[in-house]
């Protein structure tokens, strides 16, 4: 089997997800080449052929130009599959490529079992096995689903590629993440509020538990979108990726995007009324309780220690 890995580069930097693409190639036992719109001064550790287009020339966000560059590689290599990360870059580019290739796209692959891609359904409550009937396939990989056994090494042999293609979407610059007073990536203890807290007044209860534990409080995306908690406290792929000693998830069901942001925590406690919530999968302890009763009770007892 032959595959093309689509690397990612943004704002002068190579993104770490490239190693996960290489890990997938290892797991699938596939022969691979890599494609990157990036820079010669930031090459990935990879011992294969790298088709490189210059980001300075082709833009960091220019989907149809990137698609056309990638199609050149597909034309030349005739791969069985093209592999991208399920990221803002990958999920944007993949369908454009799949359409041009008349290939099936399988999104957010979390496992690869005997050539069968496995994907999550209903917020990861269910799994789905997919059979590709189009011959060729485009896959996007869930962040963190495939980890390399060892750090990839080597220097790629470069093949530079070019195109005259012009995009109709014009990139006008990046807007940096909002800077706030809280850097949860450095917190040792985090207590996070999810949609299950019910109303904005209950954020106080979460903050009180965090204070009793001498930690910080965070939140999942719905709570931030509802403006109950400011964005700089959001944990997840679009917020901060944290790795505290203790993570307490209160009323958080465990959407994939949230799990990706906290699953490196050393010890996870989940408080939820739903025993089957996906957060239970990563929790060391799942407390099945109404958090409006349990959280204040816990806070009082910790303060009394």
């Amino acid at each position: 089997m032959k595959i093309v890995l689509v690397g990612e580069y943004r704002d002068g930097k190579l993104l770490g997800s490239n190693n996960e693409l290489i890990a997938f190639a290892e797991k699938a036992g596939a022969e691979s080449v890599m494609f990157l719109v990036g820079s010669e001064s930031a090459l990935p550790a990879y011992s294969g052929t790298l088709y490189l287009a210059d980001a300075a020339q082709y833009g960091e966000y220019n989907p149809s130009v990137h698609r056309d560059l990638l199609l050149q590689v597909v034309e030349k290599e005739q791969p069985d599959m093209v592999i991208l990360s399920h990221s803002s870059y990958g999920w944007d580019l993949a369908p454009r490529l799949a359409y041009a290739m008349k290939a099936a796209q399988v999104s957010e692959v979390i496992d690869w079992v005997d050539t069968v891609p496995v994907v999550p359904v209903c917020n990861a409550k269910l799994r789905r096995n997919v059979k590709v009937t189009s011959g060729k396939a485009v896959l996007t990989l869930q962040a963190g689903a495939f980890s390399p056994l060892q750090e990839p090494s080597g220097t790629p042999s470069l093949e530079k590629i070019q195109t005259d293609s012009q995009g109709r979407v014009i990139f006008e610059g990046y807007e940096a993440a909002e800077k706030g007073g809280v850097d949860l990536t450095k917190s040792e203890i985090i207590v996070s509020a999810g949609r299950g807290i019910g109303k904005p007044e209950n954020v106080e209860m979460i903050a009180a538990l965090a204070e009793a534990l001498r930690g910080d409080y965070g939140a999942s995306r719905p709570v931030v979108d509802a403006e109950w908690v400011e964005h700089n406290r959001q944990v997840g792929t679009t917020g901060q990726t944290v790795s505290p000693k203790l993570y307490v998830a209160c009323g958080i069901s465990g959407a994939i995007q949230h799990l990706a942001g906290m699953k490196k925590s050393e010890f996870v406690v989940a408080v939820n009324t739903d025993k089957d919530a996906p957060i239970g999968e990563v929790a060391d302890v799942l407390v099945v309780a109404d958090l409006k009763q349990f959280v204040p009770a816990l806070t009082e007892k910790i303060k009394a220690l």
Partner: protein
Amino acid sequence: MKILVCIKQVPDMESRFKINSEGNWYDSGDLAWRMNEYDEYAVEQAVQLKEQVGDADLTVLCIGPARVKETMKKALAMGCDRGVNIEDDASYQRDPMTIAALIAEFSRDKNFDVIFTGMQSQDRASGQVGTLLAEMLNVPCITTIVDFAYEAGEIRVKRELEGGVKAKVKTTAPALLTCQLGLNTPRYPTLPNIMKAKKKELLSVPVTDLLKEEALQETTSVYFPEKKGGGLVLEGDAGDLADQLIKILKDKTSVLA
């Protein structure tokens, strides 16, 4: 201006799911149905655009069995002018390429200026239909928008990237945008608007009129993930639970030391 917003009806994600008898999707019985959360932001943005430009016609489209009309009525009550239901009892089995091709087939001669979709559905979550539709209609597409502005044919948006970073991007209509959570604040339909929505046009188009593409993939099975084990489940009185948890934290972590 002609605006299209594409929506999907999905089960409430807090539901207790069961697998269907074919083993290839969740069982559709005993579920509370609602509008896909991402699509609520798409409908709201479409209605706001219509309100901004004044002279606009806004169609909401939904593929699925008869029950999806209930969800479409919400979109009509939020401010869409008419609904089109592509009637399809088998929509849950169709792959993204087929779904996009159905909408493209319907849209091709309608010349929509702006099309909104959610960035993905909450159940299948492929996140492909909007982008595929744009490719089929040969219009520019920007995905995962969290900010939208329109002026005289020019569309300026912010795309959400990872780690709180956004990309500022522009294009010109006709164009398709896929909407991320937090793009706006979806309105609650008011009672008078719910009443008005009942009189709005709600067309049904049989799927067979539009179905021309063959699927490129199929689902072989849907199942519950294996519980990874290890995790301790505690149940009981809140006070007792707090005592138990404190003991565990003392034994297993250093945070209470």
